[in-house]
């Protein structure tokens, strides 16, 4: 009966489940904290993000510490969340490190205009928030700050929309890089993929096919 009903509506159950699922943006990202007061004062008071939800619970399942889990509103329905595990000590492997590997894990919030980015910069400076230099990247301009836990947080302005050319270029770049990674894994030879130039060259050889070979180079 179900099959008949779905056919009569012009689609089947399998069509429904073959449709790519969609996401509607970020609900929350979450990190552990061992600095409850400083974290709340930083996000709620210095940044001004409303504290919108908190859970306090006995640890479950067995062995899980009792905990607090709390959320700050970061706009457009998104939140940034923290866990505070009661009676625990921060493990050594979560200590902040002066490493790109460590700061690679970060949250970046969006603002819509250059004025908003400037207002944020002024607010953060006025609040004495530790900041890194403002950076103009290819398609974004960003402020960077360090929260009391040592986590990096970014506020960014996208300077132009992504286009289909960006997406196609991203695929070309990463296809070229994955081939090099495959080669590295296959040979175990670190020189197979030890600098970005190889990616650029692989990509260049593919792109060369798009341009007519008869067109020479002006001397």
């Amino acid at each position: 009966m179900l099959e008949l009903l779905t056919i009569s509506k012009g689609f089947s159950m399998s069509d429904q489940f073959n449709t790519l699922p969609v996401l509607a943006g970020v609900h929350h990202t979450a990190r552990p904290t061992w600095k409850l007061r400083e974290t709340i004062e930083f996000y709620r008071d210095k940044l001004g993000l409303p504290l919108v939800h908190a859970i306090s619970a006995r640890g479950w399942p067995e062995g899980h510490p009792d905990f607090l889990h709390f959320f700050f509103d970061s706009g457009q329905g998104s939140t940034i969340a923290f866990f505070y595990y009661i009676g625990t000590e921060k493990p050594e492997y979560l200590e902040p490190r002066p490493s790109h590997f460590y700061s690679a894990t970060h949250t970046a919030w969006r603002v819509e205009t250059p004025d908003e980015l400037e207002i944020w910069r002024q607010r953060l400076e006025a609040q004495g928030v530790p900041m890194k230099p403002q950076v103009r990247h290819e398609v974004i301009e960003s402020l960077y700050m360090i929260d009391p836990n040592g986590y990096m947080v970014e506020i960014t302005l996208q300077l132009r929309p992504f286009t289909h050319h960006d997406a196609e270029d991203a695929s070309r770049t990463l296809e070229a890089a994955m081939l090099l990674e495959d080669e590295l894994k296959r040979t175990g030879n670190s020189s197979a993929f030890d600098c970005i130039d190889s990616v650029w060259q692989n990509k260049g050889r593919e792109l060369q096919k798009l341009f007519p070979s008869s067109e020479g180079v002006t001397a």
Partner: protein
Amino acid sequence: MSVSIFVLDVEEFRPLVTNAQSMSGVEVLGPVNGYIKISSASFLEFNRKSLGFKPAVWYGALTGGMLGRVTEFGRDTLRIEPELR
């Protein structure tokens, strides 16, 4: 042998194209499928300040791809020469 770089036809990399158009012995083709090809029979050299690039964009200037080898990529000078055979 020659050298080429491929520049995605987007605003942030456009100075590479406008710079190249004023260089003698340099050919600029395209865009084809969103890429502009900049070629020279001998070498290509760019200056960061002439391009108006901040460091983050400068060090990604070849992300479009290249035929050749980078022989200098300092704070202000990028030079690409033919691959060695």
